[in-house]
C-alpha cells in the first residue's frame, strides 16, 4: 500500500474519540464515588468523623493521601500524551512522600518509647492492608483505561503514577472509616498499601500501556 493511499483512508475516517480529560472524568469520578459508597455502606464512616476532620493530626491523613491522588492524577493525564514524558516532573510526589516521612518521624519522637510499638501495630492493620488495595482497584483501572486511550511514551512511569493516584484516593476514602489517628500507624500501613498497589500498577503498566 502506498502512503498516499493510506492517507486517503485515514482522512476518510471521521470518527472522533473524546478528549482524554473527558475520559478521565467519566472514569475516575464514578469509581471514586463507588469507593466512598462502599466504605459508607460496608464499613461505615467513623462515628466522630466531623471531630476528626477538625483535628489536624487526623485530617493530615486525608490531606496527604488526597494531595498524592490529585498530583499523581495530573501527572497521569500529562503522561497519557505522547510528549508528556518529556515534560512530566515527578518531584511533587517526592514532596508528599517527604511530608509523610516527616510526620512519621515527628510522631516517633513525640510518642513515648514504650507506647511506640502499640501505636505502630494499632488495631486494624489487617483491615487497612486489605481494604485500601481493594478500594484502589476501580480508580487504578480507570486511570489505566485513560492511559490506554492516550498514547504514553513512558509506560513504566505512567503505570507508576496511575498506581499512586488510585491508591492515594483509596487511602483518603478509607480514612473516612479508619479511626487510627497516630501517624506511626497510618504513615506505615497506608504507606505500605500504597506502595504495594503502585508496584503492581507499575508492573502492569510496563506491559499493558505499550501501543
Amino acid at each position, binding site marked *: *500500500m502506498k502512503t498516499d493511499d493510506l492517507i*486517503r483512508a485515514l482522512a476518510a475516517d471521521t470518527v472522533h474519540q473524546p478528549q482524554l480529560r473527558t475520559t478521565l472524568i467519566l472514569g475516575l469520578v464514578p469509581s471514586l464515588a463507588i469507593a466512598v459508597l462502599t466504605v459508607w455502606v460496608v464499613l461505615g464512616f467513623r462515628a466522630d468523623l466531623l471531630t476528626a476532620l477538625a483535628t489536624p493530626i487526623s485530617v493530615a491523613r486525608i490531606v496527604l493521601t488526597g494531595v498524592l491522588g490529585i498530583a499523581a492524577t495530573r501527572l497521569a493525564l500529562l503522561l497519557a500524551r505522547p510528549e508528556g514524558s518529556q515534560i512530566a516532573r515527578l518531584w511533587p510526589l517526592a514532596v508528599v512522600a517527604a511530608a509523610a516521612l516527616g510526620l512519621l518521624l515527628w510522631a516517633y519522637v513525640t510518642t513515648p518509647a514504650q507506647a511506640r510499638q502499640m501505636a505502630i501495630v494499632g488495631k486494624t492493620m489487617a483491615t487497612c492492608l486489605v481494604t485500601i488495595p481493594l478500594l484502589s482497584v476501580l480508580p487504578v483501572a480507570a486511570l489505566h483505561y485513560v492511559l490506554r486511550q*492516550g498514547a504514553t511514551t513512558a509506560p513504566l512511569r505512567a503505570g507508576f503514577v496511575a498506581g499512586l493516584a488510585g491508591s492515594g484516593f483509596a487511602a483518603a476514602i478509607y480514612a473516612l472509616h479508619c479511626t487510627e489517628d497516630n501517624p506511626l500507624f497510618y504513615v506505615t500501613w497506608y504507606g505500605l498499601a500504597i506502595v504495594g498497589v503502585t508496584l503492581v500498577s507499575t508492573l502492569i503498566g510496563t506491559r499493558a500501556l505499550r501501543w
Partner: protein
Amino acid sequence: MMADQGEVWGQLLMAANAGDARSYARFLQAVTPVLRGIVRAKGVSLGPAGCEDVLQDVLLAIHLKRHTWKPDSPVRPWLYAITRYKIIDAFRARGRKIDVPIDDFADVLAADAGPDPTEAADMAKMIAMLDGRSATIIRKIGLEGVSVAQTGAELTMSEGAVRVALHRALKTLAILRERHVK
C-alpha cells in the same frame, strides 16, 4: 519559518479534530514528507521500503491518537514524540536498538517520496488479515479513492456504518501491526 510551519500544522489539526476532513487530509499530506525525512534519517539501515513501513506505522498512530493533542499546545513536540516512539518500536521489532534523541528532529529535512513512491509491504499484509468487508472498505477508500458514500452504496451499507467500520478496521490494523511486530 519552522515556527510558522508548526502553526499551520496546528491550525489544520485543530480544524481536523473539529470534524473538517479536508483540513485533516491536508495536515497528513503536510507532515508526511517531514516525517519521512525523519524516518529515513534514523532508519538508513531499514532501506526505503522498510522506512515507508515505519512511516505508515507512524501515520496510523498519529491518526488513532489524534485526540491526545491539546489544541493549546504546539503540534511539533506531540508529532515528534509519536514518531520517535514508533521508530524505536520498529527497531526493537527487528531486534535492534536505536538511540533517537528528540532534539535531532528539528534539523531533519523533508524527504520527497520520489517519482515512484515506495510501496510499503507490511500494510497490505495486515489488510489481508482483516475480515473481508473491512479489507474491502479500506481498499476501496484508500487504493481506489472511492468516496465513503459510494462505498456504502456498493456494499449496501449506510454511510455512517461505513465510517464506523472504517474506524474499527484502522484500529484493528494498529493492533495487528503491534502483534505482528512482537
